[in-house]
């Protein structure tokens, strides 16, 4: 009989029993609805063992890549270590090895980690500030390319963690963090698929990581990146992105500013949503990444879907204020 490990407990799975049935029989409450492998309410993550392909059927590939599966249709053939979605993050510690101001309100922190973190560029970590506040920051670094974890932190008025990062944080300081979390990242296997990426503010952070990840994995299809800001001085990494576009013919970078003052040559002026929709006609068959302002993400997600992109090909990360995990472990 295969055994299911959840947290510190082991549960023996009966013959032909699903993971969901097994846990329920042992009195573990797991949310479920369709119990047919469709609705994803009973989603879990396999930390060890193989849940089988049936239990992953229909999940978006970013979830499959992280070993998520539907427990209601998983009849394990081997021992499984599982975690509920909100338990899946791990606690780790890192030391700041570089601090750089990217513009007047955005600071870049790079961390060397005590233990390696298994992550994808575009996911996020929950960083624990010196006073115990928890805030989510996207991972900009690319595993296998960068030896550090990189975050771009926007200074918010009264921000308890961003304020610390901006003013006090110094090379050598240590931080604890939880994660990684999130399913907005690049998955290889379709190198020719065109990609559209759009974001505002530090929404560029995950997008920049995703673009670098895709290019380092040999993506050959067109990659169109739109970065929006209120004014030109609020953009960042403009020179780096232009240099990337110059060396990668399939990569196109479009900086967008709402107010024309200070706009440099090559910058689009106006509402980024309109600019994207005007420049990109049909997006059927495209993979779409949207990050940053929740309203923009929501509107572009809907617009791209209506313009033909498959729902499972649209990956979105809305930056909600004080997005923190339900329960820090």
């Amino acid at each position, binding site marked *: 009989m295969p055994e299911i490990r959840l947290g510190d407990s082991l549960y023996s799975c009966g013959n032909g029993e699903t993971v969901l049935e097994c846990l329920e029989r042992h009195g573990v409450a797991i949310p479920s609805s369709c119990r047919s*492998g469709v*609705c994803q309410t009973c989603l879990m993550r396999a930390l060890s063992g193989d849940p089988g392909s049936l239990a992953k059927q229909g999940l978006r590939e970013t979830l499959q890549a992280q070993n998520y599966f539907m427990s209601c249709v998983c009849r394990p053939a081997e021992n499984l270590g599982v975690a509920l979605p909100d338990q899946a993050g791990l606690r780790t510690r890192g030391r700041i090895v570089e601090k750089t101001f990217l513009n007047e309100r955005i600071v870049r922190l790079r961390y060397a980690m005590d233990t390696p973190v298994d992550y994808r560029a575009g996911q996020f970590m929950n960083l624990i500030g010196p006073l115990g506040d928890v805030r989510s920051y996207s991972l900009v670094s690319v595993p296998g390319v960068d030896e550090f974890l990189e975050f771009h932190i926007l200074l918010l008025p009264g921000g308890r963690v961003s304020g610390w990062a901006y003013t006090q944080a110094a090379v050598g300081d240590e931080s604890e963090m939880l994660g990684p979390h999130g399913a907005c990242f690049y998955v290889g296997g379709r190198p020719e698929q065109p990609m559209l990426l759009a974001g505002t503010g530090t929404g560029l952070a995950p997008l920049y990581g995703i673009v670098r990840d895709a290019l380092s994995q040999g993506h050959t299809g067109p990659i169109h990146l739109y970065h929006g800001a209120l004014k030109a001085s609020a953009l960042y990494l403009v020179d780096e992105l232009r240099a990337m576009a110059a060396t990668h013919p399939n990569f196109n970078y479009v900086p967008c500013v709402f107010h024309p003052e200070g706009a440099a040559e090559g910058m689009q002026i106006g509402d980024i949503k309109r600019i994207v929709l005007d420049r990109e006609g049909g997006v059927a068959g495209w993979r779409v990444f949207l990050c940053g302002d929740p309203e923009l993400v929501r509107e572009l997600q809907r617009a791209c879907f209506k313009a033909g992109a498959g*729902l499972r090909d649209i990956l979105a990360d809305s930056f909600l204020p004080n997005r923190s995990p339900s329960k820090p472990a």
Partner: protein
Amino acid sequence: MSSIYEHIGGAPAMDAAVDLFYRHVLSDERICHWFDDVDMARQAAKQKAFLTMAFGGPNNYTGKDMRVGHAHLVARGLNDSHFNAVAENLKKTMEELKVPANLISEALAVAESTRNDVLGR
């Protein structure tokens, strides 16, 4: 072929069917406002469960789920006209998927059987 679910290719074909259906629903001015504030990915998973049931695929449909899931919308005025519009979009989706007419009728009958649960009657 015993069901639409099998006719269109089973589980692997369902995502494309859901995309078609949901795109029609969001483009339909009679009903799209009901979907303004929903999480699209979560909504698509629910629609997939619904379509899978309507198409005769594996499901554990309970009227209670439909009732509970739509109660807050009924309180805001969800009525027969909206239900009819969704059913029209379902029909259009199946026609685009080249589902034979007799199977379309069957699926619409299954959808119809949820009407009172959806509308809380």
